């Protein structure tokens, strides 16, 4: 599976949606996505099962780090190649480890991640159940 550097962070979408409630569709959508450069996405599509990334085939991926995994909707963006971005939220939490190296701050950016294209399946809930450890 192709490897990437994972960055997490705030977005206005996530900020607006969180006031509608973290159980809301808007919040799930705003935090249940992962951004990737278009060239990387094309490479991923070439490894993916038939129909992935096509209209009707969905564009879901499993992102996995040493700490956990999450199923997310893939979006193209202006990232450099080799980098993916996930907004702050339950999915990002599944991917971040609790090791703080004595600072209190977990390693939240710059983690190594694998990305695997998935056949379409219903979105997973947020909270503890979001993603699989």
């Amino acid at each position: 599976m192709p490897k990437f550097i994972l960055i997490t962070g705030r977005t206005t979408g996530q900020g607006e949606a969180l006031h509608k409630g973290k159980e809301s569709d808007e919040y799930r959508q705003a935090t249940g996505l992962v951004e990737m450069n278009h060239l990387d996405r094309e490479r991923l599509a070439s490894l993916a099962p038939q129909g992935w990334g096509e209209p009707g085939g969905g564009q879901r991926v499993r992102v996995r780090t040493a700490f956990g995994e999450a199923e997310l909707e893939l979006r193209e963006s202006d990232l450099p190649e080799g980098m993916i971005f996930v907004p702050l939220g339950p999915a990002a939490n599944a991917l971040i480890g609790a090791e703080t190296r004595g600072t209190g701050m977990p390693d939240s950016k710059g983690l190594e991640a694998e990305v695997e294209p998935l056949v379409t399946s219903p979105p997973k809930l947020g909270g503890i159940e979001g993603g699989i450890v």
Partner: protein
Amino acid sequence: MKIENVVCPFCGCLCDDIVVEVEDNRITAVTKTCSVSRSFFLHAHTGPAHPTVDGQEVEWPEALDVTARILADSASPLIYGLSSTASEAQRKAIALADLLGASIDSTSSVCHGPTTIGIQNQGEPTCTLGEVKHRADLVVFWGCNPAEAHVRHFARYSVSARGKLTPQGRKDRTVVVVDVRPTRSSRTADVFLQPRPGCDYEVLTAMRALLKGETSDVAEVGGVSVAQLVDLLERMKSCRFGVIFFGMGVTQTGGKYLNIAELLALVAELNAYTRFTTMPMRGHGNVAGADCTLTWQTGYPFAINFARGYPQYNPGEFTAVDLLARQEADAALIIASDPVAHFPRRAAQWLSQIPTIVLDPEVNLTAREARVVLPTAVYGVSAAGTAYRMDNVPLPLKKIVDSPQPTDEQVLDWIIERVKT
């Protein structure tokens, strides 16, 4: 009814020019807000009116008794959060921690805690936001994305704001963005530097060396060309008043507080050439206030423990993620934050293994794992109080609509009373 000069308590900008329209005790419209603030005000609906214990609705006295018992019976309780409540409530939370011999930590520990550690090493040349608005002709955003996270920052304080020496706003400023990826902020910049992830430390130390007159025998550092660094330094040395705003891009990666220490040292050293300052982009509306209240009452800004009867400070030992991930906390009181939504899974999970009490206006993700949920009024909407802006300017929050929920301050008072008996 129109209420003016309302302070939006959501993010560290604490914009205080919001106009809110209220009818029949409901917020019907807001103006001057950014989109996130708008969402905040219009969705600040009251959560549940009644507390719950183990998922069952109960009356307040019972919920408070259960809470007090949980806390009083625990050996190592953790009080965490604080960044979205007023300083008056924060002060009570600290009093409770003192009484219990608890650990107490704020969301700083996963945000600008590394900045605080950096400041403890290096100091901090800083200023209030008005100084940036009036004087800054060079504005650097390092590892932060205000266009998404502090939406009115550019307009009110740092980029398009018109000040005494910056009457043309944007035209009177050079904007530099340093980030590992292009963002909405970088697209508005005059100069965009894109280091490789985790290389801010190398870039900053290289800049300090170049500033001291060292020459480089490499062409690039951390993905940025030396020529670009030399150019940036020239701009920094020759500006009238420069500022570096910085965020999670440097606190959360690689060297963490070491990155910040380098940044702070660079800014201090630039003052030999011109006036240069820096400021962390504080995320939550009153996380700066949590730093302030914890510091004035205990001496320390986060990661505090009172088990010995006096305050002790140790990031890594008493920080919430560590206490939870190492399963050292045996009870938790979460106030005005949602660690289940924002903590690494391994730490968040422990909150459902120990008796957790939540004080929050909403039944947030943490509340869903909690034994006791105590619904409280939204600060800045149904609870008045004080909040501290990212530059530590304290502002008065108004109570705009009534709510059946008590304030955090009130609930904490009730808990303290019961724990004492």
